[in-house]
């Protein structure tokens, strides 16, 4: 068995220290809000008085998944309690038509993407507890998403920017397909195939996916690039669609080549893969690491795990170590801190994806060690 030191950031003591710090920070982000959701970010520059932003329903949603996952390795931390309180809060936000809201705090603006992300949390909570309220909420949210789909497979209403149909909506497709594992509705599956087809048409020859940025004409942060690729990949797995999975793997391999040939990821990429290396999108790196780890899980190809380690290692020590309980364990939006993505802020989703990437690497390396030394 390799020495602890040889495993570097995956050494047990370092993994425990950093993940506990990240989880402490996420728990604090929940405790500081009045309502049970996780605060969108911490920033003394954007929020000089309190530091903490309002609760963010979208990201609270998928943070539930992280908390429940870590509950399996740290059962004494009470993470399940926090996860379910977040899920309970999300249930209270649902509109009459089944939609869940966009924005921070409590709003009445229905959002396609945000509903999709909250769906992940509701699904995880339901699978953990089998509670009826979670099932009812997720079913209504799913129906709203499916009924909002246009004939061509796009979602036009409930957009972050009106008229902009971003390709990272593939992540919504994934959420709906996951929900359909419980709803078992052939119509839902058919409609999601149509939706996927709509976004698949946007995959260019150079493996850029058109319109995967937040807005038209801008470079795409690795955050939304990763959203898009992951949406394709996980949808393909759920549909057992080999063709789509192959395409998703091609996208992932492009990321692998970019990292390997350049030595690091840019914070954002343009339509010809021209990178903005003035910053690293920390969240994006964590998400890309997750994608490559998943590709390794699906294929057994160690090259993907190899690059996943590198992409995550580029940001693993960017997690804050501090005596300030509001920042200890936090993960910045960008490095340097003033970089273009979520500058001067510690977003809750950065901590979430950081923890997810870390956990996945720890799991897989442990398995590799066990297999290779057997």
């Amino acid at each position, binding site marked *: 068995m*390799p020495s602890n030191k*040889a495993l570097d950031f*995956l050494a047990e003591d370092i993994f425990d220290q950093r993940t506990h710090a990240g989880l402490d920070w996420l728990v604090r982000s929940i405790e500081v809000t009045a309502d049970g959701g996780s605060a969108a970010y911490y920033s003394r520059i954007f929020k000089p008085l309190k530091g903490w932003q309002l609760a963010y329903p979208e990201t609270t949603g998928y943070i539930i998944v992280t908390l429940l996952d870590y509950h399996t390795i740290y059962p004494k931390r009470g993470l399940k309690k926090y996860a379910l309180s977040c899920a309970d809060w999300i249930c209270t936000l649902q509109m009459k038509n089944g939609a869940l809201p966009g924005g921070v705090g409590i709003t009445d603006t229905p959002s396609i993407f945000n509903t999709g992300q909250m769906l992940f949390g509701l699904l995880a909570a339901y699978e953990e507890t089998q509670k009826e309220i979670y099932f009812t909420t997720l079913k209504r949210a799913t129906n709203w998403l499916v009924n909002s789909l246009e004939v061509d497979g796009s979602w036009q209403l409930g957009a972050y920017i009106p008229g902009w149909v971003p390709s990272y909506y593939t992540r919504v497709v994934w959420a709906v397909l996951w929900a359909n594992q419980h709803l078992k509705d052939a119509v839902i599956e058919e409609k999601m195939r149509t939706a996927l087809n709509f976004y698949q048409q946007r995959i260019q020859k150079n493996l850029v996916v058109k319109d995967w940025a937040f807005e038209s004409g801008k470079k795409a942060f690795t955050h939304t690039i990763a959203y898009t690729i992951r949406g394709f990949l996980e949808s393909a797995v759920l549909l057992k669609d080999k063709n789509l999975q192959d395409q998703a793997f091609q996208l992932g391999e492009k990321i692998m080549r970019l990292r390997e040939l350049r*030595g690091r990821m840019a914070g954002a990429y343009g339509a010809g893969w021209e990178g903005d290396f003035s910053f690293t999108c920390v969240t994006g790196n964590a998400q890309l690491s997750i994608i490559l780890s998943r590709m390794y899980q699906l294929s057994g*190809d160690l090259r993907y795990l*190899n*690059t996943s380690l590198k992409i995550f290692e580029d940001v693993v020590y960017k997690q804050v170590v501090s005596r300030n309980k509001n920042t200890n364990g936090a993960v910045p939006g960008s490095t340097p801190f003033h970089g273009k993505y979520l500058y001067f802020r510690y977003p809750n989703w950065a901590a979430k994806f950081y923890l997810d990437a870390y956990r996945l690497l720890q799991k897989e390396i442990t398995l*590799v060690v066990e297999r290779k*030394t057997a």
Partner: protein
Amino acid sequence: MTHQLLLTAGYDHSKHSLAVLELLRRKGVSVQKVIIVNTFSKKRLLYYFRQLDFKEFKKKALDRVFSSYVSESMISDEVKQVDRFLEKEKIEVQSVSQFCKKNGIEYIRVNSLSGPEAVSFLEGTDLVIYTGGGILFNSFIKKVKLGVLNCHAAQLPAIRGTNTSEWSVLLGIPLSTTLHYIVRKIDMGPILSVQQKDYSACHTINQIRGQATVFAIQDLVAATQKIISGDYTPQPQEVADGKQYYTMHPILKHLTEQRWQNHDDT
């Protein structure tokens, strides 16, 4: 028929290049020209900066440039393996440029093999023996009549790319060398031969890497003679036949080392 041979050297103190030149000389095979890539070019330093952390960069510098000037304890097992070979073959350690001067071989120094100086120096070359110097472009490759001969330290087409010895061990693929012609796509050129090799005397991955260099030296010398006498029929590769491997992350490297130790103990 006399073939015009040219050798590329990754840097002036390349023991690999020196050994190939000397062993060919002993066999009566004349290398007419040598291209030496400058050790400290901006492009090379940028490449290493992107690929290696400081510890690895320091190790590479010690091994490649300063190994003759530092104590043996500071040199890696990889270089020691090559040093032992040179000693056994009684090859005098000197720079490639010094060897060229002593033996009347025309040579140039360049920053890049893809630059115009290197390409024009190729004029009239039948065979290039590649012993380092970076990625080659079509402007270089297509100027050589027979081809650019390389010895790859793993089984092709299975393991293309870098850290191929490490990947072979980790994946349980027999350690081998492959002689092939270089084409623009990395490690996808026509294959001349694949030979499984005996690494049983190696206890560490670094020793394997060093021994791979020794095998490459021997194979390149033997292959050059065979090519000159028209002995090979190269077999083309398809893209789908193999995969591209990249520098191995230190965590996986440690697992690889562990795997080799376990293999060694059995």
